[in-house]
């Protein structure tokens, strides 16, 4: 039993020693015209050099952001009230050296861009600004039970070369106070 304990401890220490992966940062929000707008930033989204290589290979690469507004529940699962998905797809044209970026919100194209450098692309793909999450009319005013959570699903991977899995950031939360 002691041996097992030490193995677990060593495993946990070794895991914690690895550099952290991509994560969501700087979640901010504001209310306007009974809507909530959310902004955030993806840190270390391009830590994996494979992503840059994949973009340069002219394949379309998509970063998907899931944004939710949820209500905390005691002794129960939190209730999701608002949800939206932002997809940012980049496709590089190696003839023109331009990066065509298409931004979707809930599968609808909301914007297209053509960028000429990878730095612009990384910034564009990592930044989500003022996304309209939805109407806040159903939210109870002046309460601290709500929060916004965001996760980014970056690319498809294979865990242990065997199991298909999405590389994501995991949910990042920020408490909000309704006006």
């Amino acid at each position: 039993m002691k041996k097992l304990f030490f193995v677990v401890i060593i495993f946990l220490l070794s895991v914690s020693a690895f550099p952290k992966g991509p994560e969501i940062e700087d979640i901010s929000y504001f209310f306007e015209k009974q809507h909530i707008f959310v902004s955030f930033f993806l840190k270390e989204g391009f830590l994996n050099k494979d992503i840059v290589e994949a973009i340069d290979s002219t394949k379309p690469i998509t970063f998907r952001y899931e944004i939710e507004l949820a209500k905390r529940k005691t002794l129960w699962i939190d209730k999701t009230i608002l949800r939206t998905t932002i997809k940012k797809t980049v496709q590089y044209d190696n003839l023109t050296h331009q990066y065509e970026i298409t931004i979707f919100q809930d599968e609808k194209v909301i914007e297209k861009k053509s960028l000429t450098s990878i730095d612009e692309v990384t910034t564009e793909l990592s930044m989500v600004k003022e996304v309209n999450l939805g109407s806040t009319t159903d939210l109870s005013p002046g309460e601290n039970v709500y929060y916004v959570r965001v996760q980014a699903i970056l690319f498809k991977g294979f865990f242990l070369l065997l199991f298909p899995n999405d590389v994501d950031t995991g949910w990042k939360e920020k408490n909000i106070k309704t006006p």
Partner: protein
Amino acid sequence: MEREEYKNAITKRKKGFYNIVFALVTITIFILGYFLYKNWADSLTAPLVILAIFNSFLLLTLMYVLLRQVIKGYLEWRRAKEGAKIRTRLLTAFIFLGLLPSLLLLTGAIIMIESAVESWFRLPVHTINEAGQKLVDSSLNILRELSYERAEGIAQQVKSVPENLYTSFIFHISNSRDIDAICLINSKGEILFSKPEDSIAIDRFKTEKIFSETGLKGYIILGKNSYVFSSAKINNEKAVLVGYLFPEDLLEEARFISENQKLYLQAKSERKVFKISMISSFLALTLAVVFASVWIGTRLTKEINKPLQLLLEGTEEVSKGNLEHKIDYSAKDEIGQVVTSFNAMVEDLLKSKREIEKSTEEIKAAKESAEKRRNYIEVLMESLNVGIVSLGAEGEIVSMNKKAKEFLELSPKAPPQKVVTLPSWITIRDAINDLKKRPEEKREIVLTFRDEVKVMVIEMVPLTREEVSYPGSILIIEDITDLSRTQRIAAWQEVAQRLAHEIKNPLTPIRLSAQRIRKKLRDNATDLNEAIYEGTTTIEREVESMMAMVDEFSRFARLPEIHLKPGNIGELVLSATLPYQNAYPKVLFSLTISENLPQILFDREQIERVFKNLFENSIEAMKMAGEIKVSIFEKEKNIVISIKDTGPGIPKEIRTKMFLPYFSTKRKGTGLGLAIVARILEEHGGKIEIDNEYNEGAGILIYLPR
């Protein structure tokens, strides 16, 4: 048997449960895999998803089989089930035999795939592609620079005219032959002028870019007509874009090179997926091989272990005594032969066991019968009024009955062997030694105890019947004390009668003499003096006779103390015979004396008296004519003097009492002679016996200790 069936039923049920769980998990994997394939996979990853599903299934199956075997093996090992150890070893060996080469192959394959795939992308094709791409880029860069410079120049020119004439001025420039396309846009992204129309689409991003510090430089628009655009700000509100057509032939070449480069880059980017799919395929193969080896190993182990387990169980059953256990297994191989031999051996054992049981039953019955007989004999022995002592081959005490213990005054609970510690045993032992020589005889012995003297008759019977002989013998002891006492009383009565008679005999002549003298005196008879003389003579004679008789009695009662001195008994015997040889010429004395007789301690006077008494008795019995044979020899620890005459012998009825005092068959005997003889010899530590073996006359044996 019921327990076995119950166990089998439980095992079957468990197996069924595990199979259902396994089937459910498998179905779940395939359903999840299907959804993953449908919703997650794309054209690139679809084969990988399928492989992943297949690998997951194989891995799960393998883990299930391995885990099941490990748990089963561990439990069987802990329960010390028959064949568990060899089963685990065999299975481990099979698993490792399958696993080790497979893992080595997989590792080798992974290394080779990694190395091979990476080496593909290190080939010069990459350089060639890049070179082609650079050529295209160079051509484009010329157009970029040209469009940028021209845009800057036009912007400078436009700045010199009033703002409301910007469009007219641009229109004027558009007719210039060195420009393929020109646009005027405002900061809102609205196109104010464009020639040709729709040569460029303006969006927010482009607008921002155009009005930024860097401006839009060398922006390429591909379409029916492909342009390279560059922008230049006229002011913060207006900007001009100048475009040059991409030459068709160059565009074609550029497209071709770019497409190839694209394919190369995509392939390079997907090399990881390719590697994964290759490794995944190898993994699937490895898992399939390992699973097959484990499965085959399990089956083979079961095949090998089953008869072995059955044999072990059989051995266990047989060791517990269940010889009816049969191993239900048939095969034509060596194990089958072993099983057949085992069954045959157990059958033989069963037969032998039954025979032994039968013999045991017979022995038990015989033992019970013997026990009954023994009990019967014991009861019989205990019921007997005589003492029975069984002696071993060496004369040791084996057992004795209650009566014998009673006779010998031994505690009933005391072990029979304790009898040897009793003083009386010495007498018995001597008698036994005598009886060993003459087993058909009986011996009368006198045992002195603390409170009483007992007379016993002992007889030794050898344990022989017909032709059957056992070592040892039986000693029969009969207490004849009461009988002896009766005989002694009878003897004393006879002595009293004889004494009375002997006293009465001289009294009659004395009374008659006295009466005659008184009559002669009363009658004043003339022959008074003569009568007195004769009468007193008679009285004197009878009184002397009576005195002699009294002296004899007194002598018996008060025998002088013996004075033992060493001497030659042969010489004494010889000197004792001499007077009789001279006095009785018709009596022949033959004397045989063994050579080298040792000197012994004796009272010469007393022992001489013994011989005289005995010789006189013989001579008288032979009526002064006959033969007296005297032989002296050494026997064990005694000197034995045997005296045999040719007289009428000693009647059997008096043999037991002839050494008692006052017993005599002679008319004038006092009956003390032989009693004195016996007493003298007793005081010397010896004894006198009648020689029953001698039948031609009287035979006497005298024993004197050496």
